[in-house]
């Protein structure tokens, strides 16, 4: 399965819905999408990972890269994820402390720091 990406705007947030597998082959597409959004002035991103079947460290690297970019503009990058097998990867790498992880897009959009 390949990677699918779609974006939409909810209030002042840009929601990126990701589906499929994020690995060394597909992660560059996600990176391009995040870079493009930030270059276009979207600094408050919500990455919806509910449709993600597989995530590896390359994908984590892209998300961390995205976070660095939005923070340079005082923005935010929030994740939506309820899948235990995906959450586990964030836990073992300590990234649950780096990313705010929400249970729904509504919750992520409504959140403020």
């Amino acid at each position, binding site marked *: 399965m390949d990677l699918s990406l779609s974006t939409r705007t909810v209030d002042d947030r840009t929601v990126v819905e990701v589906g499929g597998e994020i690995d060394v*082959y597909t992660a560059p597409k996600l990176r391009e999408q995040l870079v493009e959004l930030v270059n276009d002035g979207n600094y408050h991103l919500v990455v919806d990972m509910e449709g993600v079947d597989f995530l*590896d*460290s*390359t994908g*984590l690297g892209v998300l961390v890269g995205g976070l660095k970019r939005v923070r340079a503009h005082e923005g935010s990058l929030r994740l939506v994820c309820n899948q235990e097998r995906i959450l586990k990867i964030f836990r*073992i790498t300590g990234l649950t402390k780096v990313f705010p992880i929400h249970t729904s897009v509504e919750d992520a959009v409504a959140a403020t720091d």
Partner: protein
Amino acid sequence: MATVELRFSALPEHVRTARLVAAAVARRAGVDEAVLDEVRLAVGEACTRAVGLHLSNGVEAPVRVILTEEEKKFSIEVGDESPTSAALAPGSHPETDDEAEGEDEMGLAVISGLVDDVEVTTSETGGVIRMSWPTSPQPLVS
């Protein structure tokens, strides 16, 4: 002798194939269903690292994956033939951009976080990541 041996050109698109093959062989070997996600992720991380080492060092040899069903365990060896594999061991800091370096270290962090029995060896001729998981005996199919 290996149960299944796989060699693939060091290209990112083949890492998924290695994950699928490893998970299929692991399932057949009797690795618990709940652990198959970990096998898939760990072998993917090891192959991603090997592909990265081959690509960045211009190594044309294929990446090797050896899947072995043993009496009470299932083991996977992922070998690269990158001469600088040793230089990229955890703790060293090669001159790469921050993101790529972070990914390499994160890959090893994921493997060591996931797999209890793991061993990383490096030499001048390449590196090997060995991992194993316990298996439970399967009922005979009648």
